[in-house]
């Protein structure tokens, strides 16, 4: 019942904040957001699952099931629980939401109670996304997440907020519909009597089809795989489906950007891992080269785009596209290091990109500009922010002892060990992305933070407010903790991805034949 309690408490908090007066909304929301943080940390302490949630052999932590809808040929049940993949993401969501609320205190001055209420409502939905194990429950929460983000961008965003909000909403809803139809068509063809993800996974593993609409089992699987892949790739986002992201990020208020980059993008890769790669590993294997091309193009193209930007927020936004490409590369490698690294990278990138956006936000709060050309040498005026920003950038580049390092190293090891054609080549090219990241981040840092002071703005550059400083310092400490002791999460992640690799030995078997 702990997961239900966690979601319920967050939801009730959202309602309470909505009804609270603007004056106290921010402080109340932060105080209430500590409840889910405490709850998720307690869950983390009590965590006793083993194996992968979608395999019948695995045991879940905090699992509950209840009947929801029994009519029709397919039962829909409330089924939640966590395994080693979802547990770290639950912790990430609660912690990041709490800090994002803190970082909203300065920039959000209008309709505050609504803003904080939506943040908490989004957290409640995110917790549902990462814990649901029945497709319908999962889908309800998945769609729930869109609604608050649409309002957060649309109401509190920048000058082109309406366009950005609609674009975000349309893109992700079309993607959801395609994914929904793909998955439902697949389940209708299977010999199962519920939408339970565990039942579907095992039915697919045994190839127990009741019908295939005359397409043949293999074709149907491929069609369903790509319908879902399309749906999730928009969310991740993967080039060429990424165009909503820069608009959404640039227009969104900073706390919403933190949530968008830190947690919402991870929904896409999390869903890919659960649906595409756990349920249909055979198709993923057959089309590994195609998926790897998407991944590598995202890495390189995203990095190149970031290099060309003048707006700090756009730089970070495009670099997210690049970083999420690594996650997909890790998934497609489909070995212990690749899958484990990809999952770890979701958490690490969640923390680091959230931190980067917060730093940009802190600078913007003070300087009221984010343009690289407008600012120079502000490190003297804002020493703590500058230090944290530099640390975050190094984390992004994958400096050892930072969280990004562990994730990326595992992904690259996995990539080199992968056995799909040209895997080593893909990995080598993707690694080149790191160099570009280092390039654009150092370049931006050097111009904005260091050198002679100048600020093309009407505002005085003063040190950041103490709550902003607190938020970014906590976050950078978490990045360092996770980098020096990755086993905090990595142990449980490894435990959850091992069964995937074991159940699909073809993925790691060396291909016979002439490839590479």
């Amino acid at each position: 019942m702990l997961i239900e309690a966690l979601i319920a408490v967050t939801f009730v908090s959202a309602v309470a904040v909505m009804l609270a007066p603007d004056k106290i909304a921010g402080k109340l929301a932060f105080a209430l957001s500590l409840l889910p943080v405490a709850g998720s940390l307690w869950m983390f302490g009590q965590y006793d699952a083993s194996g992968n949630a979608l395999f019948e052999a695995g045991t879940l932590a905090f699992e509950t099931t209840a009947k929801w809808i029994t009519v029709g040929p397919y039962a829909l049940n409330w089924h939640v629980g966590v395994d080693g993949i979802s547990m770290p993401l639950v912790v990430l969501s609660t912690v990041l939401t709490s800090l994002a609320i803190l970082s909203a205190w300065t920039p959000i001055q209008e309709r505050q109670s609504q803003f904080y209420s939506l943040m908490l409502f989004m957290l409640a939905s995110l917790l549902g996304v990462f814990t649901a194990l029945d497709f319908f429950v999962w889908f309800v929460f998945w769609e729930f997440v869109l609604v608050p983000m649409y309002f957060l961008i649309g109401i509190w965003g920048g000058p082109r907020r309406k366009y950005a909000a609609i674009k975000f909403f349309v893109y992700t809803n079309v993607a959801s519909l395609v994914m929904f139809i793909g998955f439902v068509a697949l389940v209708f063809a299977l010999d199962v009597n519920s939408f339970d993800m565990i039942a579907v996974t095992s039915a697919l593993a045994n190839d127990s089809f009741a019908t295939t609409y005359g397409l043949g089992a293999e074709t149907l699987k491929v069609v369903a795989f790509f319908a879902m892949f399309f749906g999730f790739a928009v969310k991740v986002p993967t080039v060429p489906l990424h165009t909503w992201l820069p608009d959404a990020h640039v227009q969104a208020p900073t706390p919403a950007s933190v949530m968008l980059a830190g947690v919402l993008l991870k929904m896409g890769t999390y869903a890919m891992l659960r649906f595409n790669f756990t349920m249909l590993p055979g198709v993923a294997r057959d089309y590994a080269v195609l998926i790897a091309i998407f991944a590598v193009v995202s890495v390189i193209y995203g990095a190149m785009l970031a290099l060309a930007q003048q707006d700090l927020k756009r730089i970070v936004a495009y670099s997210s596209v690049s970083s999420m490409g690594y996650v997909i590369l890790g998934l497609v490698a489909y070995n212990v290091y690749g899958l484990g690294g990809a999952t770890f990278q979701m958490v690490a990138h969640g923390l680091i990109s959230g931190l980067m956006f917060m730093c940009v936000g802190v600078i913007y709060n003070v300087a009221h500009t984010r343009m690289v050309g407008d600012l120079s040498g502000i490190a003297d005026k804002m020493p703590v922010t500058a230090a944290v920003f530099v640390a975050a950038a190094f984390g992004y580049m994958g400096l050892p002892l930072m969280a990004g390092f562990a994730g990326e190293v595992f992904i690259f090891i996995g990539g080199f060990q992968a056995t799909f054609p040209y895997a080593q080549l893909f990995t080598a090219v993707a690694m080149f992305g790191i160099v570009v990241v280092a390039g654009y981040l150092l370049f931006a840092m050097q111009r904005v933070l260091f050198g002679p002071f100048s600020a093309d703005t009407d505002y005085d550059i003063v040190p950041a407010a103490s709550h902003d400083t607190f938020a970014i310092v906590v976050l950078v400490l978490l990045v360092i903790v996770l980098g020096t002791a990755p086993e905090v999460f990595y142990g449980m992640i490894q435990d959850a991805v091992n069964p995937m690799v074991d159940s699909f030995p073809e993925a790691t078997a060396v291909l016979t034949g002439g490839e590479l």
Partner: protein
Amino acid sequence: MVELPPLTPQIVLGVTAIVLFGVDIVAPNTRKNGLLAGISAAGTSLAAATAVWFLAAGTGDFRFVQFDGALVVDALSLFFAFIVGSVATLVVVASYDYVREEDHLAEFYSLVILAATGMTLMASANSLVTVFVALELASLPSYALVAFLKTNRGSVEAGLKYFLIGALSSAVMAYGISLIYATTGTLLLDDIAAAVTGTELGGVLGLGIVMLAGGFAFKTASVPFHFWAPEAYEGAPAPISAFLSSASKAAGFAVAFRVFTTAFPLDAVAATAVDWSLLFVVLAVVTMTLGNFAAATQDTVKRMLAYSSIGHAGYVLMGLAALQSGATDANSFVLGASMTHLLVYGFMNTGAFLFVALAEYWDVGRTFEDYNGLATRAPVACVAMTVFMFSLAGLPVGGGFLSKYLLFAGTVQAGFAWLAAVAAINSALSLYYYSRVVKAIWIEDPSDDLTLRGTPTGLYTAVIAAGVATVVLLVAFDPVAQTAIHAAEVLFAL
């Protein structure tokens, strides 16, 4: 212990209407809006509660035949009595504020209750005579109600259009009934079913069935008798629009479900007279597509909702379109899904129209632009409106997502995957115009002089209650769907 008659919901509503007249006779010249609204709300909610109670108590396959088969009480009639009763409750509660400054209040409330009585009787009608009489009992008060704001040109014009098309379709329907009587020699649905098998006058019977379908198309605002709906809904007082587009539509479907499945079983008439499921396939596709595309081009919110209501009629028609002879389980499922969608739709659509009523009460104007920034002034009502809009579009914030899923899945199971695909595309498209309202009220900036006078208790209560019901239906969806599918099973088990 006294045993209540099976027709209690209908009796309660009828008595309530008479009590309202009585109150007006006793004190004709005093303003008593609260008293009248209170009596009406008590009557309608009692009718709805009785229907639920009967449904819960009657766990078996009950079917009470009344008046030698002219009326029948079964799960279907009680299910629709609940829809009509609960929608009517929301409508009268909202009307308390909406019509408080009008004259002839007793007439207003009693006409609403009389129409509700007619609608619940439609759901029970088991003979073509009672079908016709009940339909007229529901329609005649509706004409007067649409034209209730008699100094308002739009309202009067809407009432006249509604009346003329209604009269036309009643005539068509009566003629259809006479043709059916000519072929079968009876008006009782059960007896017609026995007589249609092996009739020699298949052509005449077929014509009669098609004309009957025309009458139902009018009541449910489906193509080709949908023209009145946008006019009537836009011109009518908004609570009446809510009432007509939710309860009246549901009642029209109730009677269509019963007449077509009981009197004209597909396996009997498909070969000899007319395959009416084919007719409904065409009507469903045209109705949903026309409704959705027309809704997307509207400038005023109320008219958009009117066309969206036509679109939803198209979805519900799939319940009749996907029926096939001999496929009992699939038939019960898809018909039950249609009924479930009507119930969920009853709450979300009523709520949406009542929000429009709230906006009219505040005099903010009719277009999307006039709604700009309403959320800055009335956030709670706007949360409810957002729930209605997203739920109507099929996003899983309310029961609309599940009822649409059930309906589409039922259609696929019945072998009409292409029809479900058309519906899914329409449904995805509908998000465009529903989200325009959401965008206007939340995201656009209010004009500087946007001030709202007060928070009217009745309207707020009704809007919030409808919103809560819509959300609750997402969680507590199972009992509703179970009941509906069971009702359909009882219908097919005859």
